[in-house]
């Protein structure tokens, strides 16, 4: 499958996982009565990373995939898919919409960086994200949380 098409699919896949999911899929496909981590989308495997503390309160969600064995991706390459949540819409509007619209001051921005650091390791992130000081509890945010993927 084309790499960009697969990335597009993964960018939407997070909407159907875990809390605030948009679609309830049946057993064997997705979350209901199932764990997310370890499930596969094609050969992409959902990795097990905890969301940063404050994610649910801020309407933030993210998934990380291991792309080993997927055509167009290197072995060990990881992709992150971010989304907001329709659960508690006001929280998502306050904490995420500014980032989606390009405004850098958002709680979800900090959460996205914290998640990326956990998945990729701070050393491979762009310098700004690598050095960015995150609050211990990432409820308050200051930096952009626009969707992006990180490969290692």
């Amino acid at each position, binding site marked *: 499958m084309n790499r960009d098409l697969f990335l597009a699919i993964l960018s939407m896949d997070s*909407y159907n996982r*875990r*809390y*605030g*999911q*948009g679609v*309830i899929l*049946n*057993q*064997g*496909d997705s*979350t*209901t*009565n199932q*764990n*997310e*981590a*370890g499930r596969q989308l094609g050969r992409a495997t959902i*990795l*097990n*990373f*905890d*969301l*940063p*503390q*404050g*994610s*649910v309160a801020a*309407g*933030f*969600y993210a998934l*990380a995939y*291991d792309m080993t064995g997927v055509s167009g991706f290197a072995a060990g390459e990881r992709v992150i898919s*971010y*989304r*907001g*949540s*329709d*659960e*508690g*819409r*006001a929280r*998502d*509007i306050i904490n*995420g*919409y500014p*980032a*989606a619209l390009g405004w850098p001051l958002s709680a*979800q921005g900090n959460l*996205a960086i914290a998640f990326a650091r956990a*998945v990729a390791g701070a050393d491979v992130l762009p310098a700004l994200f690598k050095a960015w000081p995150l609050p211990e509890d990432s409820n308050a945010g200051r930096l952009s*949380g626009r*969707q992006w993927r990180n490969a290692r």
Partner: protein
Amino acid sequence: MIGRSGFAGVMLGASMLVGCGQDGDGMGSSSRSAEARYRMSVEVATPEGTKSGSSVWSRVIRKSIGPISPYNASFKAEAVAIDLPGGRTLFMLVKDQEGMVDAYFPELAPEADESGEQSRVEHVSAIGSSGASKVLPCTPEAKPAWAGILRDSQMPNYCPMLVTFKDITDPTSVQRVNPDDLAASFGKGYRLKAITVQVTDAPVTVGIQKRLGWLSPHPEPSLNPKHGPMDFSVSATFTHGDFRRGATQ
């Protein structure tokens, strides 16, 4: 980040702002919000008779103001605890249950409008005022007769998950419980009798913190936060939020 409906709302916002003259989602509901409170009950057959536990959960849904998103929803719930002989406790989790009350009562859904949409507010409102009760098809006895001819993946599957702990003071000792085979977890004579949902006006149940002293106010951490990315065990993949959702504490 942006939610699915929010993304659609941003894309459609301009056209809606110039005035289609409809209310929020255009479904014509007279009420902007609705709550359904419902008691989730579990009955377990044991060698010492039937044991049960219950917890009242709440689902609130509101129409949003403006074109960005049609709905704003919240869910408050705590896991149901069932005390079993020998000091063991069975828990029915809130994991993935936030929108399930709609699925419990599909027969109470309103008629679709001209665009084929059904108002979620009207649906939750109808459930909340119905006083309805239902045994969920989560036990062999309660499953529909046609279930046996379908593959598992084709069965509607909204049954809550069950877990127990070897040591209730140690969250990493969590174990999945097969609802079709409680004997495998607790021994001979144990069987899941029924999971029932009953619409109620009772307040949302609180207090699970007293049983699970290690429960975090944050829902995100897994029960074993030291796990690796390829650790897909129960303690690594289940989170504190699977036992409590919303501000019930």
